[in-house]
């Protein structure tokens, strides 16, 4: 039976085939989907902020790109993933509102994407595809069968990466 697991905001989950991990309504947040194609282990994190270093309260590690990725890899390895086989797909990091000024709050999407990539490269996890930026929200699903990431939007179609 295929398990369907929902990942909330500032949350992460991992699972072993057969399962689907989904997170709904990504805006400036980034969905980091990790996958080991050999052992068919999938992981998904929904991060809100780039770095735990700048935050006043960093107890929730799933909230930050840097800490969430490290923990998600650990969780996946714990249920059988091979650390060296893990690949990544990214989605989200949009700018929902386009004010003229470039206040820090509104550029958060781009910073979340950059921080996620930086952490992944530090861990030698290749980013094999991404659908980031833009000004629209995304719902994503990672399928443990083949690691495909399905991205649904309002007005920007459905795609698979």
């Amino acid at each position, binding site marked *: 039976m295929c398990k369907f697991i929902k990942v909330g*905001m500032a949350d992460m989950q991992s699972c072993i085939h057969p399962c689907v991990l989904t997170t709904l309504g990504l*805006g400036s947040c980034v969905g980091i989907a990790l996958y080991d194609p050999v052992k068919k282990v999938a992981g998904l994190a929904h991060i809100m902020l780039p770095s735990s270093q*700048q935050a006043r309260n960093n107890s929730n590690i799933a909230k930050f790109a840097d800490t969430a990725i490290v923990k998600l890899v650990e969780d996946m390895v714990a249920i059988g993933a091979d650390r060296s086989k893990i690949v990544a797909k990214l989605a989200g990091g*949009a700018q*929902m509102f386009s004010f003229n000024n470039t206040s820090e709050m509104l550029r958060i999407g781009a910073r979340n994407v950059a921080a996620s990539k930086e952490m992944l490269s530090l861990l030698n996890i290749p980013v094999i595809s991404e659908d980031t930026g833009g000004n629209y929200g995304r719902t994503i699903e990672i399928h443990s069968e083949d690691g495909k990431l399905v991205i649904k939007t309002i007005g920007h179609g459905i795609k698979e990466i």
Partner: protein
Amino acid sequence: MVTDINNLNNVHLDVLKEIGNIGAGNAATALAKLLNRKIDMDVPRVKIMDFKDVSDTLGGAELPVVGILLEVNGDLTGNIMFILEQQAASLLVNMLMGMEPSKEHNEFSELEISALKEIGNILAGSYLSSLSALTNLKIVPSVPDLAIDMAGAILSVPAIEFGKVGDTVLYIETEFSEGSDKVVGHFFLVPDFDTYDVLLKTLGVNC
């Protein structure tokens, strides 16, 4: 000093509720004048939520909504957001422009978007000016910006601000509706964390 949203006591919450009441009351009056119709308003709620519950608060993370966001500057800083379900926004715009409600409400024309921004501007403006009159604080709203998208994606914008300081989100939410047509709108006042003290202090509440 308010150090954690979870430490707010009942007096603080009552004051924040009253702010929502006065602000949204004025906004509802402005809307009633604009449309020349009677507008009903609910008692405001102060919601303290975990992040995981945020996206579902308006009836589903994927529900298409219209969000109108204004930045707030001056003595009080933060954001104010007005959210309407897409269908409600369509009804509202038709009422305002005196058009027959169209069945196709998936796409808004440029004129309709402009009208919606103006509605957001007037409502948020009257909300904030009543708050300013009450507190004697200087409150300057920015020009409005509008996004039509999934509720989860829109609500994540203020949620991220809270994410910088804690693991919960505080919204002052007020709902209002227009008689039979059921135009339900939600106001979210999201003061920057640092300005809670300013807000509560000017209203005579010891933090």
